[in-house]
């Protein structure tokens, strides 16, 4: 048994898992307050990656690429929310799913029309090249940095959600949005802010992940589905559930890849089926939330 391989895959799983946790967290925030499952969430991930890709081509600055990725998604998020989504807050969940699904198709097709359908390599930032000797293993720098960046971002989102006024409103809204309305808080603005926050997290993750996976217009779809699996495992609407679910999902994929790469994805869904049978509300979900 090759322990180095296992250690490397454990770290790969952590890197993949932290990206999934970020994306799933965006999904969970949007669902938690707005009660909206955003099927266009993967598309925000993809748009972020493309915005970062273009910025990086012109400026060769990864920092700017990340910033632009988040900003472009911010703008797209605002437009989408103001024009379409806001009409759907009071509609049944099926309608919300359908309209975000339609939005995803339209945005993917717009990106395809602009950039073509080809997969394009996102160059590694210069500081991310090379590898570090961890003592027991030589491991690529960038993946280690992804883990650190994701951890910092998760911490930052935690602080926003648990230490700021916006976070207070968001969490109160998750518990009982009616009371929040009654207390006279401008819900429209809060809804917009939350939707855009969730979208930006996805766009940000898209740029961070792009040097590992390369960009193409359909990259959002698989991320969306995997983040669904994450929230089903962790429990939809739960902060810690997203993080734990993300890491579990990342590790399942990476560890299965060692022995049976063909079954890596299948294994992930089997795990999800198991959670569903044993604990339908997810590891951190509360019974009756939905």
């Amino acid at each position, binding site marked *: 048994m090759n322990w180095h391989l296992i250690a490397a895959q454990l770290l790969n799983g952590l890197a993949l898992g932290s990206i999934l946790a970020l994306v799933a967290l965006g999904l969970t925030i949007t669902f938690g307050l707005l009660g909206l499952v955003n099927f266009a969430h993967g598309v925000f991930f993809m748009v972020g990656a493309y915005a970062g890709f273009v910025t990086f081509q012109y400026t060769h600055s990864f920092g700017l690429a990340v910033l632009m990725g988040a900003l472009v998604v911010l703008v797209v998020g605002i437009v989408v929310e103001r024009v379409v989504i806001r009409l759907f807050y009071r509609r049944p*969940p*099926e309608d919300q799913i*359908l*309209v975000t*699904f339609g939005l995803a198709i*339209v945005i993917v097709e717009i990106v395809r029309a602009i950039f073509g359908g080809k997969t394009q390599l996102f160059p590694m930032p210069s500081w991310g090249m090379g590898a570090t000797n961890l003592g027991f293993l030589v491991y690529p720098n960038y993946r280690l940095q992804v883990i650190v960046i994701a951890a910092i971002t998760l911490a930052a989102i935690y602080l926003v959600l648990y230490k700021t006024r916006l976070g207070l409103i968001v969490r109160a809204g998750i518990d009982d949005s009616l009371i929040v309305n009654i207390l006279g808080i401008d819900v429209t603005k809060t809804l917009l802010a939350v939707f855009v926050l969730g979208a930006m997290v996805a766009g940000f993750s898209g740029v961070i992940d792009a040097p590992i996976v390369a960009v193409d217009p359909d990259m959002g779809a698989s991320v969306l589905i995997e983040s669904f699996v994450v929230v089903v495992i962790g429990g939809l609407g739960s902060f810690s559930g997203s993080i734990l679910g993300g890491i579990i999902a990342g590790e399942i994929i990476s560890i299965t890849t060692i022995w049976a790469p063909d*079954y890596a994805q299948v294994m992930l869904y089997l795990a*999800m089926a198991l959670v569903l*049978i044993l604990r339908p509300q997810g590891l951190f979900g509360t019974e009756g939330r939905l």
Partner: protein
Amino acid sequence: MMLRAIGDRSTWRVELAVAVFLIAFPWVFPIIGGYANLATRILILGLFGIGMDLIFGYTGMLSFGQAAFYGTGGFVTAYLLSTGMLHNTLGALAAGTIAAACCGMIIGYLCLRQSGVYFAMLTLAFGEVFYFLENSPLAKWTGGENGLPGLPKPVIPLGFTTLHVQSNLALYYFVAILFFVGYWVARRIVRSPMGAVLRAILENPARAAAVGHNVPKYKLAVFTIAAAYAGIAGGLLGIFQGYMPPDAFSIDQSGEIIIMTIIGGAGTLIGPLVGAGLWSYLREALQNLHGVGAFWKLILGLLFIVLVTLFRRGITGGITDSIGLFRVRRRTAAAHVEEAPAVSGEVQP
């Protein structure tokens, strides 16, 4: 012709109208640039969509994983026929349909542990499992990324003689007969007591359960039936193309059948056929237009958003609704057409 699909009294008239339409379609369709093979493809998608309509339009379950059953039915049928294990096309179709229904029962059992948004997410995720399974672990049987080529033209032994379906038009009528049977069965289902329970679940699952209906059992039953429809449609796709494509399992396929059902009109049974016709026809027509070709999916996507936002019941639903305004109803029991759009936000006493 399909305007009375949700009619009240005249059961057989609707079936007759559909039959007349099916017979005439390949002869009328060329006037607007269609052709027999496109008509066949539309019918296959329409049959697939009937299943989608039964679960979504009539029961309110939005499944994003129907491609799993489309692919399963398709690949089982294609495997049996292309390896020569079965020569009887109907036998192979039946086997594919049963296999799809069995998968539907298992996936349905798992996904129906949740409802609403969770159900949609779960069906999407389980749909992906089938895609991955086809792609590599089962590649020995399914051909992986290449799919299964070499399906023979339909051969149907009738006892006294054996039919060999050769021409495109004959193939169209072969599919049209199966579509008609599928449509007739679905219509019987929605007009049966079971159909009434399904609509009760659509309107208010809690109330349906409270009056003593076993809601999970009905949901599982209709989900299994929908999987069977997807399965037979998948089998027909392989037979029609002579080749079973792995794309049948893709999320795009699941998404497209939803879009077709919504555009055409959910809760009408004939709506998916209208949606499939519009989708397939526009796709061909737009692709041939210079400068617009690349944007066909964008245009249809925008149309879909507009329909979801404004005309929740799609084209067929819109037509039946406006006709309903002019018609005097004889019995209140027949008024479900008007009630249907308002169900979701209803407050219970």
